[in-house]
C-alpha cells in the first residue's frame, strides 16, 4: 500500500490511465483545430470531438447535439444560469435555487440579483434535502429557472431530482442541475428526470481538468441561452472558443468508462464506504453522519466526530488526503455553509470530515484509514476539554462560553 492515501474524490479524481492513453495522440499527432473544415487535421479533430460528444450524451441519456463543451462546471453553471436569465428576461426574472448549492451557482445568482433578478434560496431539511412543498410554493409566474444540484459536493446527498423535474415541467419553468458529483457515479437520465440543463465536468470522473460540458435540451422544450462569451460561434453559438480537443477526447473516454463500469464500480465503492462508516460508528461514540444516508452518493461519507476539531484531526491523519468543514481549513475562517444549512450547529461543522472514495481506493486503504482515524480521534478526545465535560455530565449547551 502506497502513502499518502487519496480519499478526496469529490475535490478531483486522478485521471484513469485509459483516459490518458486516449488523449495522447491529440496533443502531438492529431493536434488539429476541430473548426478547420478543409484538411485532415481538422476532420480528425472534429471526428474525435463528435465521438466524445456521443459518449458524454450516452452517460446522461441525452442527444449528442445537446452537449455544449465548456472549460469546466463553473463555466457550465455560469452559462446555464446567466444565459437563461438573459434569454428569458422578458418572461420573468425569478430564479429558485438552494442554500447548499456550490458557489459557482450561488455566486452566479448573487451577481444576477445585482442586475435585477430575484432569487429564492430554498433552505434544506436536517437531512440536506430540499422541501418539495417549499419549492412548489416558491414558484411564481415570474419564475424562469430552478437550479438544484443533483448531488452535494460536501455531504453527497442526492436531491429528489425526478420530483423537481416533474414540478418544473408542470409549471413551465426550466430546470438546471449541477450534476458534477453525480455524473458517472449514479445513473443519470435527462429525459426520465425532465432536466433541461445539466452541468458536468471531466475531472470528477477520472478525466482531465479544464474541460466540462453543459447539457442544453433541444426538444420539449427547446432551451435557448444567451452566450456569455463572444467569438467564433462554436457549440451552436452558445460557447465560442476553439475546442480543447485532447481534453474533450479524455472527457469522452472517461464518460464511456464510467457508463460501462458504473454498476460494478458503484457497488464496490459503496461496500468500501459502508465498511469505513460501520467501523467508525461501531468503534467510536458520538459520531454523526451529516446528511441523509439513504439519499446519498455511494462514495461519500461526511461525518462529524463530536468534541474533536476537524483541522487537528486532519493533522493527525496527515498521510490520508481528505477534507474538513472546519473553519480552520477554509480561507474565510468560516465553517462549511453546507453543514450550517443542515442546522446541526457550528460545532459539528468544525468537527466534520469528508471522505470521498473512488475508483482506485482499495480495501486495505479503507482499513488503514479507519484504524488511523479511530486512534487519532481517541487521542484528540483525551485532549478535549469538551469531551471531558460531557463525560462528567455537563450539558455543553448550558455552559456560558466566552466568545472571541
Amino acid at each position, binding site marked *: 500500500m502506497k502513502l499518502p492515501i487519496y480519499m478526496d474524490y469529490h475535490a478531483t479524481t486522478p485521471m484513469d490511465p485509459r483516459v490518458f492513453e486516449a488523449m495522447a495522440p491529440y496533443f502531438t499527432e492529431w493536434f488539429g483545430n476541430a473548426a478547420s473544415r478543409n484538411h485532415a487535421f481538422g476532420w480528425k479533430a472534429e471526428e474525435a470531438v463528435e465521438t466524445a460528444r456521443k459518449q458524454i450524451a450516452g452517460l446522461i441519456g441525452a442527444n449528442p447535439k445537446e452537449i455544449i463543451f465548456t472549460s469546466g462546471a463553473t463555466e457550465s453553471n455560469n452559462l446555464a444560469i446567466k444565459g437563461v436569465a438573459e434569454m428569458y428576461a422578458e418572461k420573468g426574472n425569478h430564479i429558485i435555487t438552494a442554500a447548499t448549492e456550490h458557489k459557482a451557482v450561488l455566486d452566479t445568482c448573487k451577481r444576477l440579483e445585482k442586475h435585477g433578478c430575484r432569487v429564492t434560496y430554498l433552505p434544506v431539511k436536517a437531512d440536506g434535502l430540499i422541501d418539495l412543498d417549499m419549492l412548489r410554493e416558491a414558484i411564481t409566474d415570474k419564475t424562469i429557472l430552478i437550479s438544484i444540484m443533483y448531488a452535494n459536493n460536501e455531504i453527497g446527498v442526492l436531491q429528489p431530482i425526478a420530483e423537481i423535474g416533474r414540478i418544473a415541467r408542470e409549471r413551465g419553468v426550466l430546470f438546471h442541475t449541477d450534476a458534477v458529483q453525480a455524473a458517472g457515479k449514479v445513473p443519470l437520465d435527462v429525459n426520465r428526470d425532465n432536466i433541461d440543463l445539466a452541468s458536468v465536468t471531466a475531472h470528477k470522473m477520472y478525466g482531465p481538468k479544464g474541460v466540462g460540458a453543459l447539457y442544453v435540451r433541444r426538444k420539449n422544450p427547446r432551451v435557448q441561452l444567451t452566450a456569455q462569451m463572444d467569438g467564433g460561434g462554436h457549440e451552436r453559438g452558445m460557447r465560442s472558443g476553439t475546442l480543447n480537443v485532447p481534453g474533450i477526447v479524455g472527457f469522452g473516454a472517461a464518460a464511456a468508462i464510467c457508463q460501462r463500469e458504473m454498476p460494478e464500480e458503484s457497488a464496490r465503492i459503496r461496500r468500501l464506504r459502508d465498511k469505513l462508516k460501520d467501523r467508525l460508528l461501531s468503534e467510536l461514540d458520538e459520531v454523526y453522519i451529516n446528511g441523509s444516508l439513504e439519499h446519498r452518493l455511494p462514495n461519500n461519507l461526511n461525518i462529524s466526530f463530536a468534541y474533536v*476539531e476537524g483541522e487537528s484531526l486532519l*493533522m*493527525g491523519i496527515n498521510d490520508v488526503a481528505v477534507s474538513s468543514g*472546519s473553519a480552520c481549513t477554509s480561507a474565510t475562517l468560516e465553517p462549511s455553509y453546507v453543514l450550517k444549512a443542515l442546522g446541526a450547529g*457550528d*460545532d459539528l461543522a468544525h468537527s466534520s470530515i469528508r471522505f470521498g472514495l473512488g475508483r482506485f481506493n482499495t480495501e486495505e486503504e479503507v482499513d488503514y484509514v479507519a484504524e488511523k482515524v479511530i486512534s487519532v480521534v481517541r487521542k484528540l478526545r483525551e*485532549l*478535549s476539554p469538551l469531551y*471531558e465535560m460531557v463525560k462528567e455530565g455537563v450539558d455543553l449547551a448550558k455552559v456560558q462560553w466566552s466568545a*472571541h
Partner: protein
Amino acid sequence: MAYSDKVLDHYNNPRNVGSLDKSDPNVGTGMVGAPECGDVMKLQLKVNPATGIIEDAKFKTFGCGSAIASSSLATEWIKGRTVDEALQIKNTDIVNELSLPPVKIHCSVLAEDAIKAAIADYKKKQPAAEPQPVAQEA
C-alpha cells in the same frame, strides 16, 4: 498549510495534558473560547502557597493543531514561574516561538487569555488580602 516543526512537535507530543482538581484552593482554572468558534482551551495551574511559584500546569484543548500547540507551550512556560511572571507572557511570544502564520494568531491570543483566566480564578480563591483579580477578558 504547512505547520512549523515546533507546532508539529507539540501536536504530536503535547506537554502537560490532563486536569487538576478544580476544588483545590491552590488550583486556578481558566476556560476560554467556544465550541461554535472551533476552539476551547482549558488551562489549569497549581501554585505552591509557600513560594508563590506555579508548580504544576495542565491543559486540554479542543481546536486546531496551532491551538493545541499554543496551550501546550503555555503550560510549559508557566511552570516554575510566579503568578506575576506568568502574567507577563504575551501572545506574541507564543507566535514567535511557534512561528504561527497570521491566520493562527487567534490561537496564541486564546492561550494568553487562558493563562490570565486561570490566574484570575486562582486569585479569586485566595483570602481577601490578595489583590483583586483582573476582569476576565472576553
